[in-house]
């Protein structure tokens, strides 16, 4: 997993590429979320445009980020979710938890 971080209207956008699965990805993502919280950046959009698939461990990584940010009065929303990832969210009913957007402006504006 690789990522780039950028800001838009007070919202942090994490552009992730590669695969979101177990191993080092989990530590990497958790550390990234904790750094953001320490900096007071708790509104986060995870852009999955360049992530083809996640496994259940990857879903767990996203959930950890979501719950950590929510406990810190923030939120984590998903952008550009592929059909494969949508399938995993759908079957686990996590589509009811995660807000998913196809348009970046809409995702950013949803925080205001």
């Amino acid at each position: 997993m690789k990522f780039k971080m950028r800001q838009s209207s007070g919202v942090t956008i994490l552009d992730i590429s590669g695969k979101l699965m177990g191993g080092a990805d989990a530590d990497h993502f958790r550390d990234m979320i904790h750094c953001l919280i320490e900096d007071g950046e708790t509104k986060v959009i995870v852009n999955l445009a360049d992530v083809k698939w996640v496994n259940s461990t990857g879903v767990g990584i996203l959930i950890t980020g979501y719950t950590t940010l929510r406990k810190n009065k923030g939120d984590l929303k998903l952008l550009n979710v592929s059909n494969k990832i949508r399938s995993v969210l759908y079957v686990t009913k996590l589509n009811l938890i995660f807000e998913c957007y196809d348009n970046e402006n809409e995702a950013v504006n949803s925080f205001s």
Partner: protein
Amino acid sequence: MADNIVIEFPSSYRWLNVIDLICGEIAEEMGFSRQALNEISISVIEACTNALEHGNKCCPESNVKAVFHSLPERLSVEVFDFGEGFDFEDYLRHIPDPSNIDQKRGRGIYIMQEMMDSLSFEKQPDRGMKVTLEKRLNGKAKTTDD
């Protein structure tokens, strides 16, 4: 296309991408719908993830083996680990609610059960576990088409 395809790889997440590609090629060749193809790929990746994480405990010296059987009416995939395994019977009795966000792990088997037509576990005589996943060619996809 050969009826059976066998791939064996070290316990590393990096090889799951190869599994994804192989699943896609086989399922497409067999005539599965795009959504069913996705479900097969997701499920076999889950089985391989379980094999390398829980079966082989991520030990790089222990391999994961996947055997794809392309049958007239269905695709059957067997995934083998060569580790000490885990108590799948106990797990199956206590499958966590996948939508519970306090639950960080444990969704893999649920995902496989929901996406495939059948799923079975079998402890191997010497060491390790065999997981068998099957998808019928004429079955409906389990998740929505976008």
